[in-house]
């Protein structure tokens, strides 16, 4: 049962990696990496139940924390200064 879910999560992680490699803009890559990190948390939690080792839940919690901080740091790094919005953009 858990094997099916972990296989689904693994397939999605491969798809996210393909999007991270192909992504036309840098935001696509950040999106794919963020998605990959969230799927890693899910996969660690499912593996904890698949192998009957509840210690993996602590790893999942720590990885969730690291993932959020990492994505926000990368966004802060690549973010450009806010541009002046044209009047035409407010419609």
């Amino acid at each position, binding site marked *: *049962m*858990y094997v*099916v*879910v972990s296989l*689904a*999560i693994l*397939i*999605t*992680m491969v*798809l*996210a990696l*393909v*999007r991270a490699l192909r992504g036309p*803009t840098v*935001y*696509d890559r*950040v*999106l*794919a990496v*963020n*998605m990959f990190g*969230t*799927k890693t*948390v*899910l996969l660690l*939690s*499912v593996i*904890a*139940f698949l192998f009957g080792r*509840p210690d993996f*839940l*602590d790893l*999942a*919690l720590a990885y*969730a*924390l690291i*993932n*959020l901080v990492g*994505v*926000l740091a990368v*966004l802060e790094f*690549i*973010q*450009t200064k*806010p*541009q002046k919005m044209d009047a035409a*953009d407010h419609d």
Partner: protein
Amino acid sequence: MIDTAVDILSWMLLFLGGAFVIIGGLGALRLPNFYTRLHAASLTETMATILIFAGMILQAGLSLAALKLAAIMLFLLLTAPTASYALANAALQSGMRPEARNRDETL
């Protein structure tokens, strides 16, 4: 009897979560522009998280593992929309506009 019902319910939740994960992954790969891909990816980060973690909490019963699972789920549900918002905000401020090419045709 109750155990069987709880097992079936949690298996259904896990299967649905796996299906949502696959759908979101396909959407993040195949949809045409950035904002639609963001929509598909954030679908997997909230709905699939709720479904999969609810199924595993049902399997865990009343234990420390269930508490940890609930904590991880709560944390993911708080942070994943925050990351999506920050990503969309950064993309919008960098000048990437959402396209609405077919808006007149669909009206």
